[in-house]
């Protein structure tokens, strides 16, 4: 195992790639009581078309990654979820734009639970019958999301910024798109994206690393997998066709989302993670609670503590977003536009503000390390290969000039788009 130490954080990461390509990442935490394990494939809602070896390319209907996640738990004669329950382990799974993850946490029966995780993820069972039933359940789930106003405003903004792009589709898809899913499609995706060389299994918590590695190795040695060459085709990102949209919705106050769509991202690795960290601190310097800008709007009742900004960088997509609940959304939009227009003046001479925000961001990162789930899931492991510890260490290196540079990249010529939910 390759050992990487983070002495400042008192953390150690052990990594090993098995013969079949499966990547194992172990982060032992001796004074914890539970162990958190997560098995991940970098396959998510953004994947719309792929090719295996020299076979014909395959199209993936919206919602398929999430659908497969649900279906993987169901086996011919048993339910994988129930088995975790019998072991006293707490299991779950999730799908986002760029990954699907299967996870459990437990204080007991770790070996059995770990073997079970590997087995149920690697041994699929898909049939016409189980797929038909799932189409009903997910149909309800989609409807439930549609009743959620926060979700509706978020999706509304994405559709405005990225019309027809996979990012703007509900991760669960639509009733029509999931109706196209067949067992053959799911088996093909499994063969491509769930083969060991695509996957990572990560454990954080109380365990002996050697024992765990041996359990995983022994389990993998018993299995045979086809080695498949996989090529992904990214869906093209088309330009937006309007700047403003409204939707009627039963909310007590209007909800507004504003976004700035940035050019397609080409950063990878630590560069990408660093850019995200800088962009977050930059947003804090311009729009954070401690700024005069925020306070002025807060005092006028235009925003409240629900106001949020966010910077996202995922694969080619790159955007800034703002969310608020307010009746005076025109004033808020004007104020954001104004602050963006003034960014150079606002940032000038703010070196010490930057320094205290950098330290605070570092402090927040350290606080996050209490949680095993955060250690496993809050890094940029899947997108950029940087774990949460790398991310925190990168914060030590950031400079005020990084802020000024990224401000030019993000806010020069920024076009604000706006989506509003109201009665």
């Amino acid at each position, binding site marked *: 195992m390759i050992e990487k130490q983070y002495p400042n954080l008192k953390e150690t990461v052990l990594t090993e790639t098995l013969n079949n390509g499966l990547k194992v990442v172990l982060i032992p935490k001796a004074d914890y009581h*539970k162990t958190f394990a997560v098995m991940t494939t970098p396959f998510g809602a953004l994947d719309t078309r792929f090719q295996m070896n020299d076979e014909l390319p395959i199209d993936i209907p919206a919602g398929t990654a999430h659908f497969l996640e649900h279906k993987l738990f169901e086996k011919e004669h048993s339910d994988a979820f*129930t088995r975790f329950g*019998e072991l006293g382990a707490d299991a779950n799974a999730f799908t986002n734009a760029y990954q699907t993850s299967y996870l459990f946490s437990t204080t007991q029966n770790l070996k059995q639970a770990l073997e079970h995780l590997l087995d149920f993820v690697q041994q699929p069972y898909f049939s016409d019958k189980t797929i038909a039933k799932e189409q009903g*359940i997910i149909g*309800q789930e989609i409807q*439930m999301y549609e009743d959620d106003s926060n979700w509706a405003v978020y999706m509304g903004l994405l559709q405005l910024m990225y019309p027809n792009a996979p990012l703007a589709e509900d991760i669960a898809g639509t009733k029509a798109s999931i109706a196209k899913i067949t067992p053959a499609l799911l088996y093909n995706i499994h063969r491509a994206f769930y083969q060991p060389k695509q996957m990572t299994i990560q454990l954080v918590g109380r365990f002996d690393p050697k024992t765990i590695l041996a359990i995983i190795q022994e389990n993998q040695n018993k299995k045979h997998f086809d080695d498949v060459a996989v090529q992904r085709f990214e869906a093209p990102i088309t330009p937006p066709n309007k700047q403003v949209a409204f939707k009627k919705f039963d909310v007590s106050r209007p909800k507004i989302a504003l976004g700035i769509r940035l050019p397609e991202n080409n950063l990878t690795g630590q560069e990408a993670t660093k850019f995200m960290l800088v962009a977050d601190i930059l947003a804090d310097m311009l729009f954070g609670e401690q700024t005069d800008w925020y306070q002025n709007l807060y005092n006028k*009742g235009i925003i409240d503590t629900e106001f949020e900004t966010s910077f996202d960088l995922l694969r080619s997509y790159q955007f800034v977003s703002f969310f608020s609940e307010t009746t005076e959304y025109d004033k808020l939009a004007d104020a954001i536009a104004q602050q963006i227009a003034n960014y150079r003046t606002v940032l000038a001479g703010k070196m010490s503000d930057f320094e205290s925000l950098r*330290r605070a961001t570092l402090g*927040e990162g350290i606080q996050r390390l*209490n949680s095993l789930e955060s250690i496993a899931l809050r890094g940029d492991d899947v997108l950029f290969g940087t774990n949460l510890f790398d991310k925190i260490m990168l914060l030590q290196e950031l400079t005020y000039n990084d802020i000024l540079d990224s401000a030019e990249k993000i806010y020069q010529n920024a076009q604000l788009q706006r989506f509003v939910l109201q009665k």
Partner: protein
Amino acid sequence: MKKIQLKKGVNLVVLPTTQFKTLHIAVDFVAPLQDTDVAARSLLTYLTAVSSKKYPSQQVVAQETINLYGAQYQTDVLRFGQTHHVRYTLQVPAPIYVGQKNTLLHDAFNFLRDMIFDPLVENNQFDQVTFAKEQQSLINELDSLSDDKNRYAVSKLRELTYNEPTMKVSSSGRVSAVKALTSADVYAAYQNMMTDDTMNLIVFGDVDESRIVSEFKTWPLVDHQEKNLQPFYRQELLETPHESFETQADINQAILTLGYRLALAPDDPRRFVALVMNALFGGSPLSKLFVNVREKESLAYSIYSRWQHDTGFMIVAAGLDVDKVSQTKHMIQAQITAIQSGDFSDDTLSAVKSSLINDYLSQQDSPTSEIELAFSRLLTHRETRVNDWVRAVESVTASDVAKLAGNVILQSQFTLLPEA
């Protein structure tokens, strides 16, 4: 758990640990729940979250939390049965990880002291400008809580279930009561809290007791009136369940909520049986509600039960299609009957117990849970050791569960329906 009495009615518990990378200071003001002052107590947590004499605006408060290495300063109101809690918490990174071994702890104590004990007050009222703003914020928050349909339905169920008027109120108060408050009213509530409430303090992290006690010497702590708090609420049985419904536009799914009485005495050892029974009924993914109602029959997308030992009730909430409400209600009731007649396997029972034990042991990996547990021990004067807790759950038998299920009686039903 060692309790140090700093003053009359002021208790401190220090929980030293190096497991985590944070330091926590938590302060709980506890009073008997009273319909008349919930709104004022709720609003004072908004005011003291964003202002004090030393840090007179939200901007300055935010700047100071940034200076404290990204501290999380939070104020909340909570309730436990018949007690109402105003809680202040401050979390900072463990000083050793940010190279501030000596000063950060002290600065954190000073900040929290200033926010709690030195509010932005003049002429016996909170600063008018801050007051007007925060009053509006709380009103907005209460309004938007009703946008969360599940939460809204559960709050309507609460109004329907309890006889006692104070029990019907949410911990944050009603919009109408918040609107009626003046700044002087809220300051009066603050002063009452400062003299009458029981005050419980918890410090959690890599700390030593003597240092903490000496930090508290800089706080203006005074004797508080010691009250005999009665946290647990119990209600007589209703002869017929209370039922009501409401229709709303712009929702797709219906929400069905049910309230069941399960009133055990606070110290009744059957509380462990109740925990297991709830988990078997609807409190876990292995439960009858989840497996039978959601998975097998696909009647509901979401469904759960929750047992509330503090109020003596168990509630069920389900999100479902409107044409399935009555069928689902019957099926929920049938699951209780099934448990009464012992219709569940030993495997499921033992899995449910393992899962409860797993959750319980896992709490030791969360500072928030550990602090919550310590507050609850101070309130209930009940302290079960980890091993005893695990053993008590392990020893629950199938017949214990079946027998206790006979005491579960439907008392209320509220349904939220989409407009036809």
